C-alpha cells in the first residue's frame, strides 16, 4: 500500500468519525464539576506519606543510636547506623520522585514529560535495591559481647552462615535488580504482580526515549 493510500484510509476514518462521534455535553459538564486532582498530583500524597513515615522511622533509629551510644553493643550501633543510612538514601529517592512530580507537566512536549514520569517510576527499583541491601543488618544487630564470649562454635558457625548468605543475597540483588534482567525468572518472581507492571512499562518507555536521543 502506498503512502497516499494509507493517508486516504485515515482521511476516510476521520470523515466517518466526524459524522458519527458524539460528545455528551451532560457527561462532559459533569466532568468539569468534579473535584479531582491531575493524575500526577494524585501520586503525591503516597510519596509524602512514605517520606513522613520514613523520616519518623529514621528519626527513631537516630534517637536510639544517640541515646544508647555509650551502652549499646557495637553490633547494634553499626547495624543501626548502616540501617539509618540506607533508609535516608531511600527517603532521598522519594524526595527526588516528588521533585520530578512537581516538574512534570502534561501540557509540555511529550518526550520531556514522559522522561520525567518514566524516571520517577523506574527510580522505585532503586528503593527495592536499597531495601534488599538492609537484609544482613537484621541478622547482626542483636549480637553482644556476652554472646561473643559465651557462645558455642555451632552458634558462631550458624550465625556466620546466615549473615553470609544474607550478605550474598543482598549484594547480588543490589547489583542485579535492573531493567536488563527483567526477563529473568528470579526477577519475575520478585517483581511479580500487577503493582509492578507500571514500573516495567515505564522502564520500557525510558529505553525507547533513550533511542530517540541517539
Amino acid at each position, binding site marked *: *500500500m*502506498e503512502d497516499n493510500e494509507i493517508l486516504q484510509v485515515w482521511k476516510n*476514518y476521520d470523515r466517518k*468519525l*466526524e459524522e458519527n462521534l458524539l460528545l*455528551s455535553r451532560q457527561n462532559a459538564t459533569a*466532568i468539569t464539576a468534579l473535584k479531582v486532582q491531575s493524575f500526577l498530583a494524585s501520586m503525591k500524597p503516597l510519596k509524602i506519606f512514605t517520606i513522613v513515615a520514613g523520616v519518623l522511622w529514621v528519626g527513631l533509629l537516630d534517637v536510639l543510636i544517640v541515646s544508647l551510644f555509650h551502652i549499646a553493643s557495637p553490633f547494634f550501633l553499626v547495624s543501626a547506623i548502616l540501617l539509618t543510612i540506607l533508609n535516608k538514601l531511600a527517603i532521598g529517592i522519594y524526595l527526588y520522585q516528588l521533585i520530578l512530580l512537581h516538574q512534570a507537566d502534561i*501540557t509540555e512536549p511529550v518526550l520531556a514529560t514522559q522522561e520525567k514520569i518514566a524516571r520517577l517510576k523506574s527510580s522505585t527499583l532503586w528503593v527495592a535495591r536499597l531495601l534488599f541491601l538492609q537484609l544482613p543488618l537484621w541478622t547482626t544487630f542483636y549480637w553482644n559481647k556476652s554472646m561473643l564470649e559465651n557462645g558455642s562454635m555451632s552458634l558462631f558457625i550458624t550465625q556466620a552462615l546466615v549473615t553470609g548468605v544474607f550478605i550474598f543475597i543482598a549484594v547480588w540483588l543490589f547489583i542485579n535488580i535492573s531493567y536488563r534482567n527483567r526477563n529473568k525468572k528470579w526477577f519475575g518472581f520478585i517483581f511479580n504482580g500487577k503493582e509492578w507492571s507500571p514500573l516495567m512499562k515505564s522502564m520500557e518507555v525510558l529505553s525507547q526515549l533513550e533511542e530517540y536521543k541517539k
Partner: protein
Amino acid sequence: MQLKKDAQVFLSVMESNKGIIYKVANAYCKNDENRKDLIQEILVQLWLSFGKYDKQYSISTWMYRIALNVAISFYRKENSRNKINQPLPVDTLFLREEGNGFQKEADLQHLQQFIKELKEIDRAIIILYLEEKPQQEIATILGLSTTNIATRVLRIKQQLKQKFSTIKN
C-alpha cells in the same frame, strides 16, 4: 496568555476537537472498556489544564500534548483515578450506533492494528503524520527536532508498508 476556565468554552473546544481525543485513545487501548476509561481520563486532564492553556500554541497542539501524555502514561492508571473516590461519568465521547453503523473497512482495521503494534512514541508520530500535521508542529508536540521526526516518519511508513504487503500476499 491564558483562557478563562469556563466550562462552556471548554465544552465548545472539546466538541470541535473531539476526534483528537477519540483517535489518540483508540490508538493506545486494546479494548473498548479501556478506551472509555482513557477518554474520560484525557477529558479530566484537559479540563484541569484548561485554565493554563497557553495561546502561543494552537488548541490542537495543546490537546495532542495532553492526550498523548495521558495515553502513554495510562498504564499507571492504578496510581491515579482508582485512588480517587469519585467515579467518572462513562460514555462522554461515543460513536453513534457503535458496532453497527460504524463499519470499518478492512484496510482501516489493519492500519489501526499496525499502529497499535508500534512502540508508544512511534505511535504518536504516525498519528500526527496521518493527521497531516506539519513536521514543525509534530516536533513542537513531541519535543523532537524536525530532522528526527522526518527520519522516524520515513521508518514507520516503511514498517507500515511492509506489514500491509505481508497481508496482501
